């Protein structure tokens, strides 16, 4: 079971990992990924827009694909929306599994698909007052696509 959540509020990585491990005795490996707003020179804030009717459902569909691919993995994927400032965390993926290879693989799969398969759009605010929509990266599409070849 990998659970997806969408929220404006910050998350607590240690609490999320502890919740995943609680009551389980068979998990030898836990992986946490945190995505953060980089403080690129002059960046004031990032606003994450999403599609309320679709985004969480799409996140859960991605989580379900990961759970089907790695049945031994349990996990939590949390994506924030709204306005975030440099240094703030945007996204958290926590996975746990009996062995480390599956925990790592599922975390990478979740991140690759959250980047390319969930309807979020980032708008940057700059110190000079301009705003700019972040362009999608071909490298992100490539990272996601490689899972279909494996």
């Amino acid at each position, binding site marked *: 079971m990998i659970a997806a959540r969408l929220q404006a509020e910050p998350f607590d990585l240690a609490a999320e990992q502890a919740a995943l491990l609680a009551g389980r005795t068979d998990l030898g490996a836990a992986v946490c990924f945190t995505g953060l707003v980089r403080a690129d020179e002059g960046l004031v804030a990032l606003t994450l827009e999403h599609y309320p*009717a679709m985004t969480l459902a799409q996140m859960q569909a991605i989580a379900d694909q990961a759970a089907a691919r790695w049945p031994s993995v349990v996990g939590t994927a949390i994506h924030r929306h709204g306005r975030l400032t440099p240094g703030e965390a945007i996204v958290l993926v926590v996975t746990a599994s009996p062995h480390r290879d599956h925990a790592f693989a599922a975390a990478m799969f979740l991140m690759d698909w959250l980047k390319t398969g*969930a309807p979020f759009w980032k708008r940057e605010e700059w110190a000079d007052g301009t705003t700019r929509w972040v362009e999608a990266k071909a490298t992100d599409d490539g990272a996601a696509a490689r899972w279909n070849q494996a």
Partner: protein
Amino acid sequence: MQLVYFAWVREMVGTDAETLAPPADVTTVAALLDWLAGRSDGHAAALADRSRIRVAVDQQFAGPDTTLAGATEIAIFPPVTGG
């Protein structure tokens, strides 16, 4: 049919949602985008480069040939940039 727009598509079209009744011969996503582009300069500008446009039909990602039969909500937006 409810149209919803996100990110710079929303900004260029000038609204986040509108209810429209396309003509009967508009049966696919591609035909809908062609028809919408004729509605205003904003629509035309937003939809000018179809390689930068993504569409969801009833909250499912759709391609140009996806049918609109029975669809109630069409979302039009740029490539996603989450994570």
